[in-house]
């Protein structure tokens, strides 16, 4: 088990590589979802204020 984490002595290179990839890819996914949620609530707020007669 500890030999798995040691990665043949290259742990200092292998694990940061996987860590950076995970951080970036998960981060972009989360940022994208949060951006979508923010746009959705902004749209709701603006459409709620619109005069009702404009409903097509």
């Amino acid at each position: 088990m500890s030999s798995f984490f040691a990665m043949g002595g290259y742990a200092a290179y292998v694990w940061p590589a996987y860590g950076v990839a995970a951080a970036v890819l998960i981060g972009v996914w989360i940022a994208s979802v949060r951006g979508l949620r923010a746009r959705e609530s902004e749209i709701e707020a603006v459409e709620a204020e619109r005069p009702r007669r404009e409903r097509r």
Partner: protein
Amino acid sequence: MHRYANPARFQRLSRAVFPWSAGLTVLFLGLGLWFALFDSPPDYQQGETVRIMYIHVPAAWMALFSYTCVAVASAVLLVWKHPLAELAARAMAPVGASFTAVCLITGSLWGEPMWGTWWVWDARLTSVLVLFFLYLGYIALANAFDDPTRGGRAAAILALVGVVNVPIIKFSVDWWNTLHQPASVMRLGGPSIDPSMLRPLLLMALGFTFYFFTVTLIRIRAEILARRLRALQFAQGAAEPSGIRQVSA
């Protein structure tokens, strides 16, 4: 293609496709990581550092693929003025830039123990760094204008000018003497890499591809809403000329 120019139709389609795309992302990344970390051998020369390849190479493939997609969307925008093309290109650029960054960083982490250096200005590394700057330039230019359609068009031109870098990156290891090794997968005569290593490589590549597709769907939906919001705010600003309404960019 123009059927999906209707944003409402696109939203419905993307909502239907999204769970499958997300599920396939998790499936292929899970399988890929299993084989990459557990069920594949160390390299006879590079030892366990070869496992960095299972992140680095798929990220590089995605960096090139994403840029090509941005360029194609840009061409569609400029030639056919397809309304969703600009939004798609804007959505994909940051994801492509992220893959490029992951490729560069994991490449450095692989290069230090194997080559003895974090960086070298050879043709492959330099042209991928240029790709990264092209992505950043695209994003900056697209957001630099008050009118987003002008920004989208300007950025589209940049994307098309920069697309020549994609074959340069691909063939850099053939055209120049590079420290970076030549191709072992996408080459005439087929892959020279062992199947036990090709399997995690292709699984991770599939996982990254579905990831790209899934995140792009999320981002395009956000871009559609942002554009609609801007139009609504503009219309409200025009309808209430006496009001002190700020139109946010």
